[in-house]
């Protein structure tokens, strides 16, 4: 079965990004497909590579990046939500005249259409948020 996953909250503040990770991992380990993970609202903040949590805490961004690499996950950050909140890839940073970017490996920035398309293409769409 094909899943779409939506993550609406940022890392650490709400448990949503953790639960979504555990759920997505379980989906994949059970042999299902994940069509896309879409990060919206504060969820875009999961995709910053500048996060440095304490050594004895989980590294939420890295967990997601590693899952994406292992399963070739499509992880999309909403461009409109990301611009408001300051998450940038190289292209966007250049376009906005910024001196650097902060997106983490395995994430890509794209439009809201990718969320709708995930709803159309997936057998199940599951949202995690606050």
């Amino acid at each position: 079965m094909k899943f779409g996953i939506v993550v609406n909250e940022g890392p650490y503040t709400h448990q949503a990004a953790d639960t979504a990770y555990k759920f997505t991992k379980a989906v994949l380990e059970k042999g299902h497909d994940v069509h896309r993970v879409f990060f919206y609202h504060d969820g875009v903040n999961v995709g910053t590579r500048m996060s440095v949590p304490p050594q004895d805490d989980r590294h939420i961004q890295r967990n997601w990046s590693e899952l994406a690499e292992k399963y070739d996950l499509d992880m999309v950050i909403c461009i409109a939500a990301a611009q408001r909140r300051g998450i940038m890839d190289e292209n966007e940073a250049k376009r906005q005249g910024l001196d650097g970017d902060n997106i983490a490996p395995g994430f890509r920035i794209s439009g809201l259409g990718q969320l709708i398309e995930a709803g159309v293409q997936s057998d199940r769409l599951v949202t995690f948020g606050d």
Partner: protein
Amino acid sequence: MSILHTISKSPFQNQSLSSCVAHASSGDAILMIEDAVYGAVSGTAAAAQLAEGENISIYALGPDLSARGLGEAKLAEGINIVDYDGFVELAVEYDKTQSWL
């Protein structure tokens, strides 16, 4: 078409559980995750609300119960405990998922 409803917020702080129960249909399931698992404690107003749903299956996420120190002895009757695998199975079993954010 059947719905798996998920709730993540404490019913003592937020109205989502109450609204969810009021909009669930016969044959649906409700899964409490994150802070919503406090709604599974026996003797509370939340547990009473959950028990009112007719022909609605009630689940709570075990890992979230353990994190919060809620052993099975504290839970109301009729609440089924699942882990993340069980969460996935529920999402497969029901036709769609609705998150009460």
